[in-house]
């Protein structure tokens, strides 16, 4: 018993010693893998602990507004009302810092077509609006020249759970289709005109694999890891682009030139001849004016390290790294983080 008590005391003391250097974060599930890697590597280097809970972007934004975490993470930028609410509740602006990029691909199951289906924005929108219902529709045939297309009904599969993947996908459809914009709109969950709902990437991919003639959308990383067939998509410049980490980084490169000051930007339907059009950033949410000096220093140190060394881990984990131009913008943002109104050394 005595020994056990001693053990508890030691454990408790050890906790006090490190407790000051624990940063709590919560939010998006999509970047969880790379964030875990970063936190792990950075802890090995500096001893600073990170506790990140991947509860979803919506949850991350809520926690940042309520001030229950030291930083948040999201796949869709915070809305103006949310930023205003955070400012009144926490008394400081919230900075958006893009970390890596992901893409959403259209995955399908049509044995007759095989691996390289080509789609245009109109065709994709019409399929998900339920206007194109057969695989041998002439609109699909027009871009898949010389292919034997089967006379099969198209079964649409979408995410049933609210997710950043859905957000990027419908954000793209809204940009390319007026009808989608007015009828359905953009959100982490939407009122789908047609289709079956699957929970998570695995739910969508599972149904697509099982149902002959189906089409759905999943994260690029998920599709690559599981070797799913995915369609190449015609971009704004008119080229058919195979989704890949390079074509995603290319999309960001083109949009970086006209990034807004707060870095909240959607890069779907990006310009540039090599840009894959359904790409998006994922952001860390950081308070501009920090309340705790030690934590502020730790956070700034971590962010600097992430963009200097951390980005190198991205491709191996199937995330597209940021182009240098965006990293330069990030470094400016990080320099603006303050403690009690003073910049952090």
């Amino acid at each position, binding site marked *: 018993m005595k020994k056990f008590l001693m053990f508890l005391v030691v454990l408790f003391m050890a906790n006090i010693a490190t407790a000051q250097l624990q940063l709590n974060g919560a939010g998006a599930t999509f970047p969880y893998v790379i964030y875990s890697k970063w936190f792990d590597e950075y802890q090995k280097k500096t001893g600073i602990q990170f506790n990140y809970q991947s509860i979803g972007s919506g949850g991350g934004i809520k926690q940042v507004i309520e001030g229950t975490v030291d930083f948040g993470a999201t796949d869709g930028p915070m809305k103006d009302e949310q930023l205003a609410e955070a400012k009144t509740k926490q008394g400081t602006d919230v900075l958006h810092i893009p970390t890596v990029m992901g893409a959403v691909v259209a995955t399908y199951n049509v044995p007759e077509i095989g691996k390289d289906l080509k789609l245009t924005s109109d065709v994709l929108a019409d399929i998900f609006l339920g206007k194109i219902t057969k695989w041998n529709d002439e609109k699909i045939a027009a871009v898949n020249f010389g292919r034997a297309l089967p006379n099969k009904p198209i079964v649409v599969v979408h995410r049933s*759970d609210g997710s950043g993947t859905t957000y990027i996908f419908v954000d793209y459809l809204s940009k390319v289709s007026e009808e989608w914009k007015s009828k359905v709109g953009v959100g982490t969950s*939407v009122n789908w005109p047609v289709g079956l709902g699957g929970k998570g990437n695995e739910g969508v991919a599972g149904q697509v694999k099982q149902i002959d003639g189906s089409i759905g959308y999943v994260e690029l990383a998920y599709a690559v890891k599981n070797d799913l067939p995915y369609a190449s998509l015609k971009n704004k410049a008119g080229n058919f682009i195979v989704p890949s980490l390079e074509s995603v980084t290319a999309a960001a490169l083109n949009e970086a030139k006209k990034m807004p000051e707060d870095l909240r930007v959607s890069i779907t339907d990006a310009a540039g001849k090599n840009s894959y059009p359904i790409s998006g950033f994922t952001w860390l949410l950081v308070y501009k004016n920090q309340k705790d000096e030690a934590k502020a220093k730790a956070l700034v140190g971590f962010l600097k390290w992430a963009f200097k060394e951390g980005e190198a881990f991205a491709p191996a984990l199937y995330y597209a790294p940021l182009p240098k131009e965006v990293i330069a913008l990030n470094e400016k943002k990080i320099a603006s983080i303050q403690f009690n109104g003073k910049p952090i050394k």
Partner: protein
Amino acid sequence: MDVSPELQKTVSPKSFSWNFGDTVFKYLTQFFASLVLLMILLMAYEMYASSSLSIQKFGWSFLTSSEWDPVMDKYGALPFIYGTLVSSLLALVIALPLGIGIAVFLVELAPKWLERPFSFTVELLAGIPSIVYGLWGFFIMVPWLRSTVEPFFSKHVGFIPLFEGAPYGVGMMAAGVILSIMILPIIASISRDVLKAVPISQKEAALALGSTRWEATRIGLSYSRSGIIGATILGLGRALGETMAVTMVIGNRPVIKASLLEPGYTMASVLANEFTEATSEMYISALIEIALVLFVVALLVNASARLLVWSFTRNSDTGGRL
């Protein structure tokens, strides 16, 4: 709760004097018991309070509208209520005869050496986590439904609206079947216990009067009717609230279709799917109102089932006819 004075006298000669321990014990247990009630009231109040935004905006139309559009902030719960009730009922329709059949076999017909391992296997089904049912349902049962069962129904009884449409595999039928497997052990094992509790003299009397084995079994069944209904209520309760397994196989589409082959959606599933990413106040409020509706539906189903038990036991003195 109160013990009559006569009884106290016989039980404990000390009890005339005030006993501190007894009093403390009495109030302590009373307190524990009231905690349960308090918790339910608190939950109901909390859900009502947090959904006030949506209740004010939509009123009763929340229950009758079938539009669910998070982008436009328009919410109606009817397809979810429908999906919950239909999938649970379907599960009951499949599981009840099976469950009672298993119970009768185990109690009346099975040889002793078979009864134990058999009962154990049935109870084992109850211990499997629902995510495992979900995965099994999604990867094994759904493809089987899609390739074998649903085409069979389409071909032979496809003219009935109940079996119209393309076989997707996922849908209301898949949800009903997976739920029936999940509630089967509850119904079977409780029914077995209830049947076992039938006094042996009743059965012996029936057999002595020259009834067949089936007739004797029927007397046993009618004797344990209220217990079997109780088992059914418990099973139904699990079916109404089941989330993960259903979400994985029901197709998650908020529509009301007569056909069992079409996808549907349940209240528990929409909560599991959309709560984490709900950011607007109205959206959260509408989701909490769904939770409140689920709470009320479960309460109503339970209450009406209790009423059923009560009316049965009132009309029949012990036994009665089936």
